[in-house]
């Protein structure tokens, strides 16, 4: 069921009271800076894990704003939304609340690569996220701008190592202290906006630029390496000025599929969904781009933009003489605007108007707000641990575009994981990592921290080696149970549901497995399924489901007494059956990788002087990237098998030494257990 939202008025009242309430408090477990997709998930996750959390954002009413496209999910991205939801994050349910056009992309290409996607109502999305955050226990929201990140002086024992102690706000007299700080500043870190020949500081049009103090601290005091990336957004177009009869209409799925595992329905009724429209560029568009090049500063810059979400300028320059698709997407139920996906541009506004009017459907279109480009700093993510903590600064976490990614879903996934670990860090619990063998979140984080980025990073299904096991349909089985039992970021309600689903699926699959008949019998029972005549063996129900034209419903109607109780899982059972042989096959490889990932490399190794046989080149790579596990090290470019073996030996050696030390200090483990118990007690005492 969809959650009932509190009325808007009430939530603003509660907001005010919280702000007043906060003033008394100057100490938090976790502070999150930024209220975008990463920040909101981070704050909510930290609070769910049990941390007293503060979210600082420039404007409370832009929390949960969709800065660019009004949509969520897609191929690869939809998997991330499902996984964030499986870990009880916000964006899946927010998408179900705000969605106005649901469709599963890649419907014909196999369930492993299905891409759940929705067009969103911007207003509803923001409302949902804001009211959700404001009703989250242990979470305080504060409007303000961060002046400075507070860190300790470098540790004398470990030069270059700091510890975060809190933040200081602009105009704030007192520092606010915290054990962990998560920076989710998006495009605001030294951000500049580009339109035509004008440049102004900022991360999003209409919002004040963030303080220079933050990027100074990151670069100068903490010595973090940064790079510069760019992105852009298209002009928004007045809907009434568009001749939609000249565009091709694309209706939504007739049965909207919710993102969240908790929802059976979306808020939007199937018949209320709004369509999208498809149109395309003309040679005139290319002409305008070429004529305006000298007036377009953004396009001349050397910074890297996303290859897969390029501006219309780079599209026509890279692939001239072609027609490019432009999607016209609704911005909301009551919105008068359309979002022209594919027309991100940075030329002067008058030329933007000339350009869009070269497209037949837009020949009389009016621009509501022009498109613009953004350039911003990102922190090279190889300086982070798989918990998204800055390796050299204890308690400092980064998530979202600041790590060089692009996209709401990528940001949300990192935010959630950083939130979980920031809370653990505050409680002195060891960090947790998700493996790339179990989730797209793991793939995302591992790619970032072990390979770094050279262009804005976006998720694709082809990045996940174990794509056929990491499907959107089974994200709950992969993550919800672990999220409750090990991570503590999942509510009991969601956990119980996941357990019910797991048990039912297991029961159904074993019922299907025991249902073994000869092919002759199957042909009699299910005449609609083409079972080869010359095959004369026994076939189990699971194997039968692997036939293209067999469905679980067919089997359930043939064997109602044993199967009809599982009808609600028809689709999942069909998918499980079809993918079973492939997943079984992948399991061995997954186990091998997990074994390597379980061998962690200490973060304080001095690779340059490590007394093992390593080439200078390998030492430098390891020193730069500091892989956290042996598995991550093997995936680095330039690491030889010899180096891996030597590292393995080193790990074994240290493990043995540690075991010896542990024997001498048995109280350490007890201490940790006490902390875990304390955390549980604390969570139990608080309202969910």
């Amino acid at each position, binding site marked *: 069921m969809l959650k009932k939202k509190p009325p808007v008025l009430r939530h603003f009242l509660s907001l005010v009271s919280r702000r007043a309430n906060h003033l008394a408090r100057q100490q938090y477990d976790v502070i999150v800076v930024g209220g975008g997709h990463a920040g909101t998930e981070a704050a909510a996750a930290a609070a769910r894990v049990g941390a007293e959390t503060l979210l600082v954002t420039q404007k409370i009413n832009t929390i949960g704003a969709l800065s660019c*496209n009004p949509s969520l999910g*897609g*191929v*690869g991205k939809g998997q991330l939304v499902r996984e964030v939801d499986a870990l009880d994050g916000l964006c899946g349910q927010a998408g179900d609340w705000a969605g106005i056009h649901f469709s599963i*992309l*890649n419907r*014909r*290409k*196999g*369930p*492993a*690569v299905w*891409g759940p996607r929705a067009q969103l109502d911007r207003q509803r999305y923001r409302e949902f996220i804001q009211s959700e955050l404001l009703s989250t226990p242990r979470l305080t929201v504060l409007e303000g701008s961060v002046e400075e990140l507070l860190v300790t002086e470098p540790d004398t024992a470990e030069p270059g190592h700091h510890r975060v102690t809190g933040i200081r706000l602009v105009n704030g007299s007192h520092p606010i202290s915290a054990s962990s700080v998560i920076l989710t500043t998006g495009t605001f870190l030294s951000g500049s906006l580009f339109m035509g020949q004008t440049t102004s500081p900022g991360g999003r049009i209409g919002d004040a630029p963030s303080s220079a103090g933050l990027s100074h601290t990151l670069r100068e005091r903490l010595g973090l390496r940064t790079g510069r990336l760019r992105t852009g957004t298209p002009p928004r177009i007045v809907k009434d000025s568009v001749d939609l009869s000249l565009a091709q209409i694309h209706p939504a799925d007739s049965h909207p599929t919710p993102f969240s595992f908790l929802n059976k329905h979306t808020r939007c009724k199937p018949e209320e969904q709004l369509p999208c429209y498809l149109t395309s560029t003309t040679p005139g568009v290319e002409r305008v781009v070429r004529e305006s090049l000298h007036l377009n500063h953004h396009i001349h810059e050397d910074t890297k933009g996303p*290859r*897969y*979400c*390029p501006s219309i300028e780079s*599209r026509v320059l*890279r*692939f001239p003489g*072609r*027609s*490019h*698709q432009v*999607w016209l997407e609704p911005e909301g139920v009551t919105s008068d605007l359309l979002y022209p*996906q*594919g027309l991100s541009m940075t030329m002067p506004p008058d030329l933007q108007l000339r350009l869009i009017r070269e497209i037949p459907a837009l020949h009389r279109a009016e621009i509501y707000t022009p498109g613009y480009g953004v350039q911003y700093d990102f922190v090279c993510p190889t300086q982070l641990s798989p918990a998204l903590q800055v390796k050299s600064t204890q308690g400092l976490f980064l998530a979202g575009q600041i790590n060089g990614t692009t996209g709401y879903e990528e940001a949300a996934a990192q935010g959630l994981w950083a939130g979980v670990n920031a809370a653990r860090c505050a409680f002195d619990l060891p960090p947790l990592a998700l493996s790339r063998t179990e989730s797209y979140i793991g793939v995302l984080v591992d790619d970032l921290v072990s*390979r770094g980025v050279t262009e804005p990073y976006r998720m*694709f*299904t*082809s*990045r996940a*080696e174990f*794509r*056929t096991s990491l499907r959107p349909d089974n994200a709950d089985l992969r993550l919800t149970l672990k999220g409750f039992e090990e991570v503590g970021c999942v509510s009991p309600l969601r956990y119980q549901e996941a357990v019910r689903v797991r048990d039912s699926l297991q029961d159904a699959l074993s019922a299907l497995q025991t249902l073994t008949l000869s092919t002759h019998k199957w042909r009699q029972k299910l005449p609609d399924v083409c079972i080869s005549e010359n095959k004369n063996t026994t076939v189990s129900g699971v194997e039968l489901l692997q036939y*293209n034209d067999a469905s679980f419903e067919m089997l359930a109607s043939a064997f109602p007494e044993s199967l009809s109780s599982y009808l609600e899982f028809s689709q999942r059972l069909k998918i499980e059956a*079809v*993918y079973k*042989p*492939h997943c*079984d*096959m*992948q399991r*061995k*490889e997954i186990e091998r990788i997990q*074994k390597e990932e379980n061998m962690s490399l200490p973060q304080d190794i001095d690779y340059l002087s490590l007394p*093992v*046989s390593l080439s200078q080149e390998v030492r430098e790579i390891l020193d730069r990237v500091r892989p956290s596990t042996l598995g991550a090290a093997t995936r680095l470019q330039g690491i*030889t*098998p*010899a*180096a891996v*073996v*030597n590292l*393995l*030996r080193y790990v*074994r*050696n240290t493990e043995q030494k540690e075991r010896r030390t542990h024997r001498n200090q048995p109280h350490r483990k007890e201490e940790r257990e006490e902390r875990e118990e304390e955390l549980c007690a604390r969570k139990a005492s608080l309202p969910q």
Partner: protein
Amino acid sequence: MFPRVGRGMWRAAVLTLTSSRRTPACRLLTTRDCTPPSALADAETIFSLSSGHGRCGVAVVRVSGPSSATALQCMAGLTHHLPPPRTAMLRSITDPIGKEVLDRGLVIWFPAPHSFTGEDSVEFHIHGGSAVITAVLQALGSVPGMRPAEAGEFTRRAFQAGKLGLTEVEGLGDLIHAETEAQRRQALRQMSGDLGRLYQDWSHRLKRCLAHVEAFIDFSEDELIEDGVLNQVDTSVSCLRAEMEQHLKDERKGERLRSGVQVVIAGATNAGKSSLLNTLCQRPAAIVSPIAGTTRDIVETALDIGGFPVLLSDTAGLRDSSDLVEREGVRRARERVEQADLTLVVVDCAHVPTDAQQAAAFLQGHLRSVLPAQEPTDTAFPADRCLLVVNKTDLLPEGERQKLDTELRQVPGLPPVCLISCHTDEGLQDFLTLLHSSVKTLCGDPLSGGPTLTQARHRAHLQQCVAALAQYKMYRDTDLALAAEGVRLALTSLGRITGRVGAEEILDIIFKDFCIGK
């Protein structure tokens, strides 16, 4: 107890590393071609020759993994029980499918965890001839669940099981380094040739196939990626499959070229077989005496015949003997003839009747007695598998020699004939020319036609590659994710020969070939 890994044991591990790449596995996948793709990943039990290559008295073949016990039982004729752990046992080693005896040797059973790798392991101590080794390795490959070990895999398993202590493992990195260095140099050598170009070309085409399928999966909903892209992939994939299958049908010519053609000298006692060996290798490698039955065991020597590697074996003269040692020699000789690529049947010209017709009948009968039994309908001897050498022509008067030569050439149903004298080297040049052309046929000419497979390991990976491409076809219309998985597996298999392919590389091709933008 075995797991005490000392310096000597360590050396064995080294040998595993250097030898496992060459493990022949020709039968491994032919038995699996029709099994579903899931069987490919279940191959968890590995085997490899653990002693060095080349001539040696005893060779050790090591097996490790869950199917070790099965392999031991079906190859050592132990149906219901296993030998006592870590105790050497003399057994006949048989082929699990053909049931023929391959060798007689020691088998040792090391149940987990008390083995080098910590897993169930078996060692076969067999005779060191390369034919025996090849036969045993091939037989192991035909046991379900078995595959040849990757370089260093035994050591890696041992390491993961904690079987190698820190001091023992000292230097392991450098060793593997040396290994990879050697591999790299070797790969470089191989990769710069035609074969390398062929594999690189396949790899490149497969990468494009995968990139195009991935582009279709990840971007086609948003982008103008026409369905035609997939049709192109279909054509490329079936082309690649056909080319690889053709390449695999080379009857092991390339491997023969790489590891040497097995040429066996056989015949009656005192026909001059050992003299022929000595003449060919130009040194007294085998003892020669006028006493019949001088050669008892196999004498092997490696030769270069016109640029082709040849492993020449001299065998005991074939006759019924009451001498136990000689009987064993004759048995070994027959066995060796069975495994030969080419047999040189040597006849003393004094035994050849002077009458042409009688001579033909005599020689045909003689060939039948020396060569392994042919199909009853098959009267002609395969010309490329046998040469008839009539020796001691110096004992014949000149006229008779000519006459015999002319007559024998006219007899139908005889293999190519050569009249030589090991004593005077008469006819030797002609014989060498004939031998060279036979060896050349067996190896194939590496310079003409398509390049041939040179390594059994390559064969195994290519076979996996072909099987994976079948998965593409199987799922092309129903589940593109699983179809793409097939291409990905194929590329991974090929990547084991040409080098690893990462996701980034695929994305680079996608962005080069398509205009992608939301």
